[in-house]
């Protein structure tokens, strides 16, 4: 039995401590907004926040999380999250959308620590998030737009 706090709610999960957080979120807690893309931290589709910091859920063992707060796309909130969500919708960033939970969690992480990211900052923070539909131009524009709206 492993204890986890996800989106502010405490859970006890019947799973091996070695189990990746990704599969506990998706298969035990029905938080399916966090996506499986590669399983080897190469695509970022599974990005969630651990105490506000973006991590790849496919490489995060539940036994290592301890008291850290897990936040997923379903539960992320606050000014930065709202600005990102509004920008994503306003610019119609999504295509297939499968990677976008992870993209947004990475973008929220970036903007939470850097109110006015440059293009190079965006490259640095977002290069680990693959979008096979190729929506990068709009992701970049949406991050700049969210930064403007927060200024």
């Amino acid at each position, binding site marked *: 039995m492993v204890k986890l706090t996800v989106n502010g709610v405490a859970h006890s999960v019947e*799973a*091996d401590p070695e*189990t*990746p957080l990704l*599969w506990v979120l*998706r*298969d*035990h807690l*029905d*938080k*399916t*907004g*966090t*996506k*499986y*893309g*590669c*399983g*080897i931290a*190469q*695509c970022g*589709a599974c990005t969630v926040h651990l105490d506000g910091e973006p991590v790849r859920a496919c490489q995060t063992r539940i036994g290592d999380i301890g008291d850290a707060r897990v936040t*997923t*796309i*379903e539960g992320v909130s606050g000014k930065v999250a709202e600005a990102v*969500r509004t920008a*994503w*919708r306003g610019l*119609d*960033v*999504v*295509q*297939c*959308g*499968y*990677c*976008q*939970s992870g993209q*947004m969690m990475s973008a929220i992480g970036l903007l939470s620590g850097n109110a006015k990211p440059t293009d190079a900052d*965006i*490259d640095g923070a*977002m*290069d680990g*998030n*693959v*979008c*096979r*539909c*190729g*929506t*990068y*131009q*709009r*992701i*970049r524009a949406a991050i700049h737009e969210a930064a403007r709206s927060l200024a």
Partner: protein
Amino acid sequence: MLKVRQALETAPSRRAFLGGGAVATGAILLGFTLGGPRQARAAGGPDLTGGPAKPNAFVRIAADDTVTVMIKHLDMGQGNTTGLATILADELDADWATVRTAFAPADAALYNNMLMGPVQGTGGSTAIANSWLQLRRAGAAARAMLVAAAATRWTVPAGEITVSNGVVRHAASNRQARFGELAEAAAAQPVPQEPTLKRPDQWTLIGTKVPRLDSAAKTDGSATYSMDIRRPGQVTAVVLHAPRFGGVVARVNDTAARAMPGVLDVVTIPTGVAVIAKDTWSAMKGREVLEVAWDDSGAETRSSDAILAEYRERLKNPGIVASQRGDAAGAIGKAAKVLEAEFTFPYLAHASMEPLNATIERAPDGTYDVFAGCQIQTIEQAVVAATLGVTTDKVRLHTQWAGGSFGRRATPGADYFAETAAIVKATGGKAPVHLVWTREDDMAGGYYRPMVVHKLRAGLDAAGAVVGWEHRMIGKSIMIGSPFEAMLVKNGVDSTSIEGASDTPYALPAYRFEVNNAREGVPVLWWRSVGHTHTAHAMEVFIDELAHAAGADPVAYRLGMLKSAPRLSGVLALAAEKAGWSSRPSGKGHGFGVAAHESFGSYVAMVADVTADEAKLKVNRIVAAVDVGIAVNPDIIRAQVEGAVGFALSSVLRNRITLKDGVVQERNFDTYEPTRMSEMPVVEVHIMPSTTAPTGIGEPGVPVIAPAISNAVFAATGRRLRSLPLDPGGLKGV
């Protein structure tokens, strides 16, 4: 109007198909007009009005005023749900804020793709093109029924009633009603068979930036993809597939796998051995300790290098003539200058972000529910039914949002549907089965863009004009051996192998296009823009070489050969103008390259701005011009072209699937790395105004990207990198 070029398919075969094509359990016979609207019209093809207007099939108006548009296609990201709803809602004069969509069930009679005959399916960039008149007529008919209901209720002439934004009004008597108030009465009205359609100047949604209907659900985690289906009692299956294509199970030792926590069962199925568990992670861990010995006696055991060497050897011999005019060899023999080139193309995986998966659940009455990113519903339904031994009416499909496809979810044999059904059958249907392919399964599982080699030879006269063109290619046909063979392969020529080359719009006085069909055991499939993925590159890079050999401007040279192709020359001129072609940089590591190509009835030109030297190749900017007829949603069209660049760039720069002794070497994103944020160029998209019926844009952005970049690399460095992916070794010493 669309130019009628050499018809790759003949009209009689199309009519035979449309009239008599049968989709039957176990014996699927069907045909696609994969060439899209252009070929369909050229061949005097299907009536795209869709017959009598069918408002009941395509629109539901509820008492709460919501208007639900039924979507007969798969939306794998291309945004067709928004576009299709826009078309209907405009004719209906609906309030866009009340418009919703729902994916239609499998029903080939109501929801067939009219460019695929009696088949419900999505592909060939046909969603908007085949639905355009059908949905306008459905929307207009529904509007007329609302008006008739209001006229009856208010006892006023229908001609005095207006409709706007979901409200029906009679100004003279100052009465009005919302759609929801009239819906029930409207449903009782007769369906007008020939409803009056709006004039283009009356459109309020078509041609505007209507916001995507899927943006909200795809930005809060609530959009349900096939991967997210959770049925009561559901189990997860992963399958250990043969390491080599064509390998079969010889012996299984599942003792260790069965002992793993969470593992419920291990079953052998035709495509491998399935480990069934309570959850995905347990199934994956169980598979790790599964021991299977494989019988490779019927398997493909060669390396891709060996297959490529065989292709080159075979290319020395003539192929089957796909098209020809005059005496190309004779003309080249007398030419002032002769150029030759070889282009090789690797296998490519689609690598959609959502790996393949599907869920099938047996209902207590022996019927089945299928939840997946259904792309050819008619085939998928038939294959599931055949595998489970029931008739197709016992199988219900529930199409979900698809996390990409790029062609992969549509296989002629519905491969992963059949695999899911086989597991359900092997387990007696006692629990809903969610089959999950891991990234490695998805990437190593075949159905690749074929490996292809093109060999070209052309002669120029003293003035630099082309006098003869010889073009020979080899690759594995997608259609030969598939249910489509009878319809789409003529005299050994698969039209999808050489589309975009053998029907070139360039004015070539003498030409000869030949095809060699390869037969290796690697499964191949359409990959976003099908044959155009390689033909456009070979054509557009070689044309560029000829232009340089002629001492001509590459844009002017092309325009000179496209005098009877106004829409293609139109986008070429527009892209060149917007990119600043006339003041482009002149080499020294920075160059512009151009390419133009028609596919699926849509015309796209791109200018690539590239900096390149021995150490680095960077695509800075892409300026695109597109002609897709009437632009139903200009913002989504722009998004598709931007996305096509991001999608295809990694295949220009590095992606390839290789085999070593029959085993696929690239198995995840570490060795088959998609384009990343820092590599994405700025993309500008210009849309040609048009009054022609709309065509598609899901695929047509892709073909010109590689040749535009390759031509820009030449302009920047003087080095001609022909084959894909571009070989950085070719820039050594620059």
